[in-house]
């Protein structure tokens, strides 16, 4: 299993606009599909409820670590678990948004890292993961999760 997921994309909008879409909690909520209780503040907890169709009301909980306009926003959250036994000690991943101007647009880099906080056994099994069956399983799970 890879320790991180990385996505890089060119957004056809100026950096200030992209930064607002990511750092303003209302704008973030409108595309991420979450109703956040308050603004992102470094060092503070962010709470809310998902609004994603089919998952309305699922709790959103993140710990904001960096708000550095207009280049970087980062938070930690608990991957996957809607209701971990103890959210404060459940394993977390780190999500980072990095923005750079590029031409008339914005280069956006998103990294979610820290999957190695998950157990050793899972990482070992992940090394054998490049099989057709695995790809099919992802498709199924993706359809299920997004459908």
């Amino acid at each position, binding site marked *: 299993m*890879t320790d991180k997921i990385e*996505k890089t994309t060119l957004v056809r909008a100026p950096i200030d606009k992209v930064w607002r879409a990511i750092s303003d909690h209302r704008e973030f909520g409108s595309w991420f599909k979450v109703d956040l209780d308050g603004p992102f503040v470094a060092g503070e907890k962010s709470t809310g409820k998902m609004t994603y169709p089919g998952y309305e009301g699922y709790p959103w909980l993140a710990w904001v670590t960096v708000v550095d306009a207009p280049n970087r926003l980062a938070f930690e959250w608990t991957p996957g678990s*809607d209701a971990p036994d103890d959210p404060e000690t459940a*394993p977390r991943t780190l999500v980072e948004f990095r923005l750079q101007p590029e031409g008339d647009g914005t280069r956006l880099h998103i990294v979610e890292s820290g999957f190695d906080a998950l157990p050793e056994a899972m990482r070992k099994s992940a090394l054998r993961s490049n099989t057709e069956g*695995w790809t099919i399983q*992802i498709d199924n*799970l993706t359809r299920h*999760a997004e459908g």
Partner: protein
Amino acid sequence: MPRAEPAILFAALGDRTRLRLVDRLGDGTPRSIARLGDGLPISRQALTKHLQVLERAGLASAVREGRETLYRIDPAGLLAAEAWIGTVSAQWDSAIDRLKRHVED
């Protein structure tokens, strides 16, 4: 980005004791409750409860051997957890699409 479905797996893993149990079982050797609890500061009842959560999530299974119940890691559950990483990746793709529509329109 809802993470509900494989969430049962990660809810099962979202606990330090259960993470340690999965780690201990990770070498593939079935173990009794007593051996699994070696060195862990919890009661046998609590341990049994944790193992049941892992079982329900498809991460471990119980096998009877004589009078003993042994627990072993369930590869299917781990594969599903792994596939979940792929799901998270796909969900980011979809979130990025929504972000682009939000700012580019």
